[in-house]
C-alpha cells in the first residue's frame, strides 16, 4: 500500500529526505512539495530525483502560483513533513501548516524546533483529538534517536537527569580552541568558513539553539510547560582561550552542557569544566547525551547533531514508524 507524504521545505533537511527517497526504496510517495517561493501538487507522485534536479537548476521546486499553504491545504497526503527553517520567536508559518494538517486528520513529522518548543501541548492535543501522530525526533540532537528512546524505549524508567552537548557549532568552536589553541574569534571564523556557523552566529553561540532543545525535552518528556525564559542560559561567546588552558591544567576541558534534573526543577545550559576523557567530550560538530535512569543506569549517546542526510534520517524514522503503525507495515 502507498503511503503519501507532502514536503514543506527544500533546504538542507528537505534535500536530504529527497536524496534518501531517490536512493532507496522506502515505499513513500511524494504527493506535494513546497519551498518559500513555489509549490507542486501531484496525487500520482512526484519523482524525488527529478525534483532535486529541477530545484538545482531553477532554484524552485514547483510553480510560483502554488504556495506552501496550498500544498498543506489541498494535496492528498497521509503525513505532512514540515522541514522549513525554525522561527524561534513565533514558530510560524510552520505552526499554522501543522495545525491545518492535523485538522485534516493527517499525521505530522517536523524537524522545526519553533512549533514544538512554543506550542507542543496544544499541537499534541490537536493530534490526539484527530487520532493522528505528531513526531519531531529531528528537533533534538539530529541523527541521535533520543526522543524515541525517551518516549518509548525507556518507558518503564524514571529518567533522573539528562546531560547533553546539543549544539554542534559551539562544540566545534570549543574543540578547536582546545585542540589547536585558537582564540574564540579565530575558532568562530573558522566555523563560519566551513559552514558550521551562520553569518550571524548569535543563535548558536549565545546558547539559544541548545536551550530550545532543552525546552522541547522538558515539555515532551517530562510534561512541563516551560519556555526559553525558564532555562538558565549562558553561552560560549565570552569564553577565553586562557580559561581552556586553565581547565587543561587539571586534565579537563570546557564544553557547553545542557542539563535537566527534573526533581530539582533544574533546566540549565552553561559552559562547564569537564574531564577530558568524559563521554560527553565529543569532538568537532558532534552531539552527545547522557541519560541517568533508575532501571537502565547511565546511557550514553553520540552522533551527528546536524547535516542534511543525518537530520533526514531522524525525519524518515518518524515517517516510517507512523506508516508501520497505521498502514500495517510493508
Amino acid at each position: 500500500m502507498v503511503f503519501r507524504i507532502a514536503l514543506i521545505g527544500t533546504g538542507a533537511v528537505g534535500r536530504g529526505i529527497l536524496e534518501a527517497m531517490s536512493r532507496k526504496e522506502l515505499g513513500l510517495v511524494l504527493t506535494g512539495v513546497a519551498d518559500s517561493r513555489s509549490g507542486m501538487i501531484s496525487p500520482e507522485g512526484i519523482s524525488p530525483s527529478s525534483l532535486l534536479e529541477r530545484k538545482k537548476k531553477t532554484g524552485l521546486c514547483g510553480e510560483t502560483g502554488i504556495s506552501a499553504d496550498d500544498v498543506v491545504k489541498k494535496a492528498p497526503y497521509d503525513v505532512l513533513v514540515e522541514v522549513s527553517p525554525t522561527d524561534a520567536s513565533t514558530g510560524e508559518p510552520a505552526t499554522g501548516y501543522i495545525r491545518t494538517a492535523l485538522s485534516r486528520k493527517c499525521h505530522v513529522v517536523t524537524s522545526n524546533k519553533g512549533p514544538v518548543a512554543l506550542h507542543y501541548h496544544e499541537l499534541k492535543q490537536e493530534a490526539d483529538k484527530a487520532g493522528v501522530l505528531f513526531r519531531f525526533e529531528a528537533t533534538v540532537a539530529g541523527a541521535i534517536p533520543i526522543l524515541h528512546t525517551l518516549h518509548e524505549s525507556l518507558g518503564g524508567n524514571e529518567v533522573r537527569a539528562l546531560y547533553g552537548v546539543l549544539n554542534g557549532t559551539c562544540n566545534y568552536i570549543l574543540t578547536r580552541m582546545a585542540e589547536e589553541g585558537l582564540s574564540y574569534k579565530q575558532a568562530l571564523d573558522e566555523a563560519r568558513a566551513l559552514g558550521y556557523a551562520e553569518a550571524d552566529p548569535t543563535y548558536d553561540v549565545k546558547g539559544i539553539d541548545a536551550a530550545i532543545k532543552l525546552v522541547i525535552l522538558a515539555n515532551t518528556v517530562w510534561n512541563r510547560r516551560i519556555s526559553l525564559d525558564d532555562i538558565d542560559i549562558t553561552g560560549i561567546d565570552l569564553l577565553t582561550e586562557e580559561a581552556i588552558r586553565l581547565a587543561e591544567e587539571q586534565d579537563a576541558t570546557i564544553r557547553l552542557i545542557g542539563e535537566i534534573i527534573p526533581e530539582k526543577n533544574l533546566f540549565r545550559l552553561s559552559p562547564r569544566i569537564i574531564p577530558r576523557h568524559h563521554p560527553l567530550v565529543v569532538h568537532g560538530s558532534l552531539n552527545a547525551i547522557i541519560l541517568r535512569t533508575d532501571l537502565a543506569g547511565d546511557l550514553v549517546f553520540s552522533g551527528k547533531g546536524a547535516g542534511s542526510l543525518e537530520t533526514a534520517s531522524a525525519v524518515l524514522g518518524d515517517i516510517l514508524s507512523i506508516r508501520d503503525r497505521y498502514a500495517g507495515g510493508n
Partner: protein
Amino acid sequence: MQVSMKLEIRDTPGQLVAALMPISDVGGNIKTVIHEHDFSSDKGSLGVEVVIEIPKERLSALLNLFKERGITVIRFGEERMHYQQSVILIGHLIHTNLGDTVDRIDKTGFAEVTKMSLAMPAIQERSSAKCTIKALSREHMDKAIEILRDVSKQKEILMIEPLEF
C-alpha cells in the same frame, strides 16, 4: 584563631547542646556545626564536627572542660576541608576586587579558596582565573558555589562550574 575539631558525644537527647556549651563558656564563637548522623560506633555515640573561633590562650581551658564533661575530642585542628572543586572565573577580576570575591568564600567558615591561578593576557582585557575551593561537606561546597555564583552575577563575571556527576 580558627580551629576545627571532631567531637564524640553520646547519642542521647541534649548531648549536642551539652557539647557546645563549653565553647561559649570559654568565650569561643561557633562558626559551623556538622552533626554526623551516619557516624558508626557500637557505643551509641555520634560524631560532631565543629569549627570555632577562639582566643589561643583559652584553648586549653576548653579542652579541659570537654574532658571534665566526658566529651571526647577525636580530631583537632587537622585538615578539615575534604571537598574540593575548581571553578574558572572570567572577567575584569582585578578591577572588581578579586580580594573581596575570595573573601566572600573565606569568611563563610565552611569553605575557603585554597589555590588560584590567574591569566591576564593584556591590560583592559578580561582575565581568567582558576579558583580551587575546599569545603567541609558537599552541601557546604554547594553553598559556596552558590555564593560565588551570586558574586559573579553582581560583578559581571562569567563563572564556569565543573560538571558534577
